[in-house]
């Protein structure tokens, strides 16, 4: 239904390069990527803000790339909501209808329905300056929906919301999307939002789309080293392929040996990407279960967060393991404790160092 073909744009030293993406009707596609990777620029380009972009933007088979923003029938919502400060809530929501010449009584009916749907009826005559972040978000979303856009472009819509309210708003957006069969392209940094709402995810790095797939495909099988780093692979280990009598290993600094599949030529430089949650620790002297032992080391540091504890083991190079708080209570890893490091099968993603976008294999 919506297809981008080779969309490119240069702004100063930054470029969007040959973006190819497609969305089917009613799909919720997320674009994720590090700050400065061009995500917002991509949304603006689709919206027609940057008239000098090249490539094709096809909506229902019609090429929109030559059209002005007001002719495209899309809605764009920024993370700061960009409400018009001189207009009331009702005027903001009705702006797109008024400007398109929709009769006043029809506009009023649509606005009334939207403020009722979003639970902001008491706010309809207020100005944006007096609204909370959550209220502004509802107004901005209602305004974006008032014109019944064929595609809704959302630029980090939950970034400015109190974390306590965020999950409530995520659920709300999901409900609205289902109610209205909306097609949404959303930019986000949050894995929580992606897992809750996304049908598919596109990873964008340095102005290029590096991988498109379902959440599991992107987060479990990164297509490149960059995607692995961005999607949270904490352990990025570079080494050289070596062979002994029977097996082939990736030899990493510190003497760490990671088993890799037969057939990889010795001497090849490769990168192993491993999630901290996949790294298993076992006390020194214990054989351990749950994977192949790749190194021994000493617990160098631990770091708590709301979900669990990251344990960094010094094996010559640091290897990070992650435990839930409950697991941590069971294991009681201490600073200075000698431990063995194990990796389960299918937990290592290998990439050729000289061709970092070439995903060789998942292996242990």
């Amino acid at each position, binding site marked *: 239904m919506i297809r981008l073909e080779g969309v490119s744009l240069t702004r100063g030293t930054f470029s969007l390069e040959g973006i190819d993406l497609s969305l089917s009707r009613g799909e919720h596609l997320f674009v994720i990527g590090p700050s400065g990777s061009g995500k917002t620029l991509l949304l603006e380009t689709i919206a027609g803000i940057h008239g000098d972009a090249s490539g094709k933007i096809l909506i229902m088979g019609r090429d929109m790339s030559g059209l002005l923003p007001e002719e495209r029938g899309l809605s*764009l919502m920024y993370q700061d909501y960009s409400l*018009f400060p001189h207009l009331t809530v009702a005027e903001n929501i009705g702006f797109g209808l008024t400007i398109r010449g929709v009769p006043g009584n029809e506009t009023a009916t649509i606005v009334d329905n939207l403020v009722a749907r979003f639970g902001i009826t008491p706010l309809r005559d207020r*100005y944006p300056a007096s609204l909370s972040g959550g209220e502004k978000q509802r107004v901005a979303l209602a305004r974006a929906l008032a014109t019944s856009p064929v595609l809704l472009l959302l630029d980090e819509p939950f970034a400015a919301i109190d974390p306590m309210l965020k999950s409530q708003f995520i659920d709300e957006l999901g409900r609205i999307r289902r109610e209205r069969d909306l097609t949404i392209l959303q930019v986000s940094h949050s894995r929580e939002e992606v897992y809750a709402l996304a049908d598919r995810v596109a990873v964008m790095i340095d102005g290029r789309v590096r991988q498109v797939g379902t959440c599991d495909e992107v987060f479990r099988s990164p297509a490149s080293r960059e995607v692995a780093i961005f999607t949270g692979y904490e352990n990025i280990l570079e080494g050289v392929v070596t062979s002994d009598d029977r097996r082939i290993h990736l030899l990493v600094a510190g003497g760490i040996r990671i088993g890799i599949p037969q057939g990889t030529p010795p001497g090849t430089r490769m990168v192993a990407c491993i999630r901290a949650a996949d790294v298993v620790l076992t006390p020194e002297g214990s054989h351990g279960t749950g994977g192949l032992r790749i190194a021994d080391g000493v617990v160098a540091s631990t770091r708590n967060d709301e979900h669990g504890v990251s344990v960094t083991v010094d094996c010559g190079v640091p290897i990070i393991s992650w435990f839930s708080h409950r697991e941590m209570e069971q294991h009681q890893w201490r600073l200075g404790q000698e431990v063995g490091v194990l990796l389960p099968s299918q937990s290592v993603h290998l990439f050729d160092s000289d061709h970092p976008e070439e995903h060789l294999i998942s292996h242990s």
Partner: protein
Amino acid sequence: MPPLLRLQRDPLVVVFTLAGGILVGLIVLAVLSIAVPELADPFHLAGVAGEPGVMESLLLTFLAGFVAVGILGLLGTPLAYLLARNDFSGKAAIEGLIDTPLILPHTVAGLMVYLLFMSRGLIGAPFSRAGFFFEDAFPGIVVAMVFVAIPYYVDGVREGFGTVPVRLEHVARTLGATRWQVITRIVLPLTSRHILSSALVAWGRAIGEFAAVVMIAYFPMVVSALIYQRFATGGIAESRSVAFIMLILCLILFIGIRLLTKRLGRYDDTP
């Protein structure tokens, strides 16, 4: 301890108050030096006000100032928007050119205006062939006022446009607004206070101009020229009365417009 007393114990506040007080005091003394003798002799003041030419000169000055600001609004507002919203090669040079009237001696500005708009000037010549003259005429006064007030208007309005996030324009366009509608429905309402404020400053600058105006149009006489003429021919008392009338009218206008625009551009219904 009351806040005022607390402030008095802060040596920085004391030093800054003394320094600022000298400037404020200078302005107050200057106003009093005109106002006190005039208020002490209201009959003389009324007599001067009733003299032929005085009220005409005041009306001429204010009207020329309004026309100059109108022209600045039509030509300067688009320029200010372009400068606020775009980066292009040569932008710094254009900004420097706009500010030229700020740094030039007013006689130089007057000479420039005269050379351009005199009957043999680059712009004045084609107009004079059509029977339209700038020298010693109302249009000459207006162009001189426009020239000296350009930076005051353009810089102020450009700053105002800069306060409107460009994303508001983007959102408005995706909602269906054309470029023109974005300007009229979003940008101008949000900068109305800056525009009025800049217009007021430009108008004040325009009606106060002397050198640039008299070089192209000594007659009909604007107030600044009239005050100088009275000072040169009739002495202090004659010129002071005209100056006092001008002062009072300007104060009334400035304060009135400031009060009218106080709430303009503030959209906050927070109790």
